[in-house]
């Protein structure tokens, strides 16, 4: 089955990972500082596929992980422009084209009275862009994720700072990673099922 899927021109995320049924190794750290140190060390050691799980956003973690900036801002700008144009089109087309009706001798379409709705629709679509764009970039909702299999997962939303080195990493070797994480202060390092 896996061979058959490999031959199809599918995007990588639809193919089963060739990992021997493991998500990766997760280590459990006490503080954000310990986690940041572990991330920097893992990167220096040549690991590239890793992820950190924390109960609150940690300042400087993106730099430590070498993460690019979020593209969400550009998504929101596009949404704002769509909202703005939709509002202009709606007000112009309904009042000046589809059903022209003179009210109090005013022009059928003018920019001044159209501004409030232009502004509101631009804000509305921008907010949709920000929220749904964020969810899409984060691939949410996603009700299953192998990281949930970690025996101390609940700590990630409470007071623990987890580092996962994933099985898709070319250098993946559970034994070596466990030694590395333990030496960096992990309280519990586990090989986690996919």
């Amino acid at each position, binding site marked *: 089955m896996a061979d058959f899927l490999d031959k199809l021109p599918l995007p990588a995320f639809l193919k089963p990972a060739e990992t021997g049924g493991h998500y990766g190794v997760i280590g459990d750290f006490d503080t954000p500082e310990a986690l940041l140190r572990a991330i920097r060390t893992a990167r220096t050691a040549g690991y590239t596929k890793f992820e950190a799980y924390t109960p609150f956003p940690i300042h400087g973690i993106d730099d430590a*992980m070498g993460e690019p900036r979020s593209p969400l801002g550009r998504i929101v700008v596009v949404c704002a422009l769509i909202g703005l144009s939709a509002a202009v089109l709606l007000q112009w087309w309904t009042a000046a084209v589809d059903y022209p009706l003179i009210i109090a001798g005013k022009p059928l379409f003018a920019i001044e009275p159209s501004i409030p709705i232009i502004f*509101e629709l631009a804000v*509305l679509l921008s907010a949709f862009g*920000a929220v749904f764009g964020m969810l899409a970039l984060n691939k949410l909702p996603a009700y299953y994720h192998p990281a949930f299999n970690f025996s101390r997962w609940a700590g990630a939303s*409470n007071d623990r700072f987890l580092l996962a080195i994933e099985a898709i990493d070319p250098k993946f070797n559970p034994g070596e990673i466990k030694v590395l994480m333990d030496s960096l202060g992990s309280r519990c390092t586990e090989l986690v099922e996919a």
Partner: protein
Amino acid sequence: MADLALDPRAELNPTLVQGDATYAGVTDAISVITESKPPKQWYYAMAVAIPLAGLLFFCLGYLVINGIGVWGNNSPVGWGWDITNFVWWIGIGHAGTLISAILFLFRQRWRTSINRAAEAMTLFAVACAGIYPLFHTGRPWRAAYWLFPMPNELLGMWQNFRSPLMWDVFAVSTYATVSALFWYVGLVPDLATLRDRAKGLRQQIFGILSLGWRGSARQWKHYELAYLILAGLSTPLVLSVHSIVSFDFATSVIPGWHTTIFPPYFVAGAIFSGFAMVITLMVLARWVYNLQHLITIKHLENMCKVILATGMIVGFAYGTEFFIAWYSANQYEKFAFINRAFGPYAWAYWSMIACNVISPQFFWFKKVRTSIPAMFILAIFINIGMWFERFVIIATSLHRDFLPSSWGYFSPTWVDVGTFAGTMGLFLTLFLLFLRFLPAIAISEVKGVLHNQLVSKKGGH
């Protein structure tokens, strides 16, 4: 819970969470409220709120069956308590957005313990506000044809987008939607915390609500930017909403309404009344859930200062209105304002002045700003005063039409009174349910504040 008090010098040195607080301690203190049976006070409050909410549904049902003639509105006062209540509720909502968005952009860390509850207050206030214009149409099930951009069935005719009432529909519905999104996005990481603590059905429910949030570094990266953008969008939005609400009046040619001061004056009034409502609710929440250590005197004192500042803006605006009425040398304008202060509604006008101009002056004194009973009573007075402000603007400007033959006097009916009391019941019911079932304080944000503090304590910064 006792270890989570705020330091009074918070703004100077961000020691916002006091004592030997730990991340797990923050999680426990806030989650435990949603996981255990509510205290007795919660049931007492619910016993008041639910019958009132029931009264709302009774009054609305009575209105739908009999028509809007059951309200006191009639020519010449076509807008009575309904629009007064609409503007009042919308204004109350604005403090929630101010706390969650504007104070976030200004990096006011003290907002962290109160922003979640204030945002919930916004949502429920806007829901209560929306009821009035919707039911003022008389046939709310047909309101979509009047409110949303849909042509009617008979003539294929569109709404008049040049009308401020249509702007208002777009402003208020955008505001409700964006506030709901902002609130929910803020809740997601905390719902995941509750999910990870729960078992069985509760875990499944919070699992679904939390959308599978994992708190991975990549997720936080997009999340933080989304939150910042929402704050940035909500800030001009909240200013636009009350400006547009004021356009409902200001773009008309009624003396007393047709003034350019309305947008800023309405926004200041909204923030003024909204903070008074936040104080009312926070004092109640502290009483119901013993949250004295999370919502501290420092928070309440800061809000009293905002009330003092916005209250003086409102007082200044009252003065400006009178000055312009005289300075414009327009006899209709002059009559409208003299009539407002000394005509048949003088009792309402002077109640407004007493509540809105005089009562906030007590907040000059630190003793008053730090006394719970004093600020609670003053906040109630301000809530009443701001209701009177909207009533005075609406009723006094309408009841003296241009021809003395069309002069009148507005009196509310029992349905008016019942509907207004009913929305208070609905508001209180929703707020108590929120306190009971959802994390009322933003867990992940408080941890972020705690982390900064732990780092600075070690001399890291």
